[in-house]
């Protein structure tokens, strides 16, 4: 299916229409996501909450252009994500999406600075500019003094901050975060959430998956997921 420019039809930065995801388990088909319809506007901070196995991580991977849905459409900035070719979708991820993986997923043999520069390795940005940009985001997350360390020399919270820095270094419009505070103690988790909130205040659209209801207070809106379906959307009042 060709990617189409739907300028007149699209009204939101991200639109999810009738998206579902099925997996083959032996002879039977299991639906990780039955059907979902929602939208996300530019600059929003959204949390997706639900029990373990409710389909929220699958949903996040679909939004990130990483997991082809079995049905439905995902439109991001008018682009039909799964109507793009494979190489176009890789470029889509590079241009539009910053990802914070569960368990950080840092490259163990690259230093903090090199990990943050990783998304820029394919952009053609000159070495000097890469360095400048990477140091700037590390300064923002409070790790300017740890650029030469390897990931296994950092604490959990520090690794999470490196993951955030890597995700935003290319200035993507959308940040996807999968359980960013899942492995952290409460103080560190608070610190991380403060950073995300600050980034959102600067205009970054953030979609965060969490099973922790406490984290929802940082978001503008929460999408509740249960058994592969959107249970509800509700707007959270800022404190």
């Amino acid at each position, binding site marked *: 299916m060709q*990617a189409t420019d739907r300028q007149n039809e*699209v009204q939101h*930065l991200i639109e999810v229409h009738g998206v579902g995801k099925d997996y083959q388990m032996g002879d039977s088909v299991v639906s990780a996501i039955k059907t979902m319809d929602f939208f996300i506007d530019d600059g929003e901070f959204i949390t997706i909450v639900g029990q373990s196995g409710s389909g929220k991580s699958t949903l996040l991977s679909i939004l990130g252009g990483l997991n082809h849905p079995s049905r439905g459409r995902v439109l991001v900035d008018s*682009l039909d994500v799964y109507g793009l070719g494979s*190489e*176009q979708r890789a470029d889509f991820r590079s*241009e539009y999406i910053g990802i914070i993986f569960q368990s950080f997923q840092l490259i163990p043999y690259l230093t903090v600075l090199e990990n943050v520069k990783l998304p820029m390795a394919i952009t053609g940005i000159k070495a000097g500019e890469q360095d400048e940009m990477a140091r700037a985001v590390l300064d923002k997350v409070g790790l300017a003094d740890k650029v030469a360390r390897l990931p296994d020399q950092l604490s959990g919270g520090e690794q999470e901050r490196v993951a955030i820095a890597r995700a935003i270094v290319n200035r993507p*419009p959308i940040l996807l975060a999968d359980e960013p505070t899942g492995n952290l103690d409460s103080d560190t988790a608070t610190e991380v959430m403060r950073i995300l909130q600050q980034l959102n205040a600067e205009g970054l659209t953030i979609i965060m998956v969490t099973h922790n209801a406490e984290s929802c207070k940082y978001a503008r809106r929460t999408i509740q997921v249960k058994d592969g379906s959107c249970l509800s959307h509700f707007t959270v009042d800022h404190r």
Partner: protein
Amino acid sequence: MMNYDYDKYRDKRAKVLGVKKRGLGFGALAGLVSMVIVLGLGVAVIPKSIAFFQARHLDDAIYKLQAKTAWPGEVLDDLAGQAGVRSVTAADNGSRIVVTFNRSKTDVHKFSIFFSEHGLQAVLLNKMSHGQRLKMLEKEAHFEAL
């Protein structure tokens, strides 16, 4: 809630949609070039080695008739049919013949006997390895061409 601004990320959208496959990728190019190099080296080496092994047992004996007359055709045909003889070619306007033979199956003594039986006084001018003779002729021809 912010309204969707279609033009805000126009450049990014253009970059994503503008991706076109431009000829061979690095991987395909690297694979192709390596294969060409390896095959090229193989082609340079293997046929030579095969040719060498095939010609290893062959010698060339060059004869001329003492009477300096031309060689009778039927004698040459007969000689070519002898066991171990690969070929009999005329050289130097027919005054000489080059007998290519398998040295493990026959030798110049048998040829001497053959010529005597046919009443021919043949003089052995030279005997050498077939492969080496071809190499020498090739080198000398190159020199003469210069």
